[in-house]
């Protein structure tokens, strides 16, 4: 696709959505959820915002599949790595070294 043919969606509309989502996330934090659920919510909203930026500002909506693959696979790997390390670092039944906020 050459430059002149590339479609340009309404970027300002996307920006407004980003601002709205920012406001939503600010509110969500003050709701009384558990730590794990709060992290999950935060990450979901952040994910939606980044998908918006990636799809419209980075034009992933209009790019060829290869570029979509290059963009998505690292994200999947990152999530996989995080999930795999959860048992060992966070939910380890054997070791519980952690982690007060105080130091030496």
């Amino acid at each position: 696709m050459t430059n002149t043919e590339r479609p340009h969606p309404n970027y300002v509309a996307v920006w407004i959505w980003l601002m709205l989502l920012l406001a939503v996330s600010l509110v969500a934090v003050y709701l009384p959820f558990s730590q794990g659920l709060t992290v999950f919510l935060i990450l979901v909203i952040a994910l939606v915002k980044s998908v918006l930026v990636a799809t419209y500002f980075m034009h992933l909506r209009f790019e060829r599949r290869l570029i979509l693959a290059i963009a998505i696979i690292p994200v999947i790997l990152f999530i996989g790595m995080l999930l795999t390390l959860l048992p060992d670092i966070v939910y380890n039944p054997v070791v519980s070294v952690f982690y007060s906020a105080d130091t030496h």
Partner: protein
Amino acid sequence: MTDHNVSEDEFQEELKLSFWYRYIFSVDHKTIAKQYLFLGLTMAVVGGFLAYLMRSQLAWPGKPVFGWPVNEGYIDSPHYNALVTMHGTIMVFFVAMPILIGAFGNFLIPLMIGAPDMAFPRLNMMSFWTMFLATLVMIASFFVPGGAASAGWTGYVPLSADPIYTGVNWGLNFWILGLALEFVSVLMGGVNFLTTAITMRAPGMTLFRLPLMIWMQLSAAILFMLSVGPTIAAAVLLLLDRIVGTGFYDPGQGGDPLLWQHLFWFFGHPEVYVILLPAFGILLEILPVFSRKPIFAYHIIIYSTIIAGFLSFFVWAHHMFVSGMDPRLSLPFSITTILISVPFAIIIFAMIITLWRGSLHFSTAMLFTLGTLTTFILGGVTGIFNGSPAVDIYIHDTYFVVAHFHYTLFPSSIFATFAGIYFWFPKMFGRMMDETLGKIHFWMSFIFFNLTFLPMFALGMGGHMRRIADLSRYDFLKPLQPTHQFITVAAIVMGIGQIPFIVNFFRSLFAGELAEYNPWRANTLEWVTISPPPHGNFETIPTVYHGPYDYSLPEIEEDWLPQNQPIEESLLSTLKGKV
């Protein structure tokens, strides 16, 4: 582009490039490839020398070692640890990667796909000079106060996180910096390789007509790009711990030492395939040429590579079975580890079947290829033992592991390199290497390699630990001392056996027989142009009509068919489906 076939020299004359732009800051991928090759081979000598020092100390502990410049030749434990660390680091990052990826990847990718150069020639030049800088930093680390890094090539914390444990301070910081620069260099190269192969293929060069070397280089680049990130993060955290005093890995400050191991091996395991795949690529190019037969199961090899690449991201904790990590992780990781042996076995079988009933020519390149294949198979099957946690409890951190990875890494990074050099030397330098010297080189390397590393399996099963400087301190190891002496003598003879190669290489460089454009009668596109190829590679970009492995087609008179040679109309229908 010039409109007549000129040699590199004539073309450079026309360009009136100064010495600096032609040899030092060249943007031509072929020159850059040669720069990588010379850098890698030089560092191989350095790494080999470090191994010699280690082996001398192991065989005759407490005796002065000839060539060790400090302490009147006595190698004490801290220095031995530094030797072990730097030997591993240099061999993996400054020999295997510059040669297999920097040299062979850079040289072959544009030529094999029919492109005039890489997509980003200046980025290519920067990536070499970054690698060069990284090498300088690593070498400098030997000469700083405290000496070179000595926490193992794996740099486990807390040994690497606090100078108290090793006595090494700046050496380890340089080690981290050198590695970071090396990562940047390979990342730049990876961007170049992938973009070039995706966008600059010659007309007719579809993805499934690409030589397998290209598929392997691309897979390796993707593996590297996607796996190195967490290790860069880990290295930054380590640097902060060391220099600023944070406690990311220090339990006393709330950190977790095991995290380093996870982040390191997340990269460390794909990294060994980053080294292995280009080596396989070399084998897969040489085998059909000297069997005069097509590669068996071309498509299946590609799919197996992709599956293995994908799986390689999920096996890393098999390096950590006895580390104290959550034991529940052992089962899934051992399953994935056993699984990953399947696609690799398929590729090996495909290579063997390629040989079956072929018209074999035992050139030096072919001998090294077969040598790589046989030793790698032994290394590969011993990986299965390591991948089973029950067995690993006994053999982890013993010489069994050392033997295993030398039987896999050494063939892939050294033997395959030699195979590639003997094969592509005519194309790179326009001259032929001497076959007799080559065969002497092969037999000396192959026989004494096996004599060096085969006994180490036994040592490991006997309980001999890794990375200890002086086994005379342990009663149960004393009977193994003669074995160490045997191994050391074999290793030294193997080292001497490299002299024919050095002589051969330099003599052929200046006085070898001039090479024609296709001395091996091979099909791939690099053999279409003159030796060495001029700037821009091809007089006109070739058009590709069929795959790269059409050897010995019964319908064709010649036993080879270059990719840019069209097939006669009358034959096209009979050959449909075969090419």
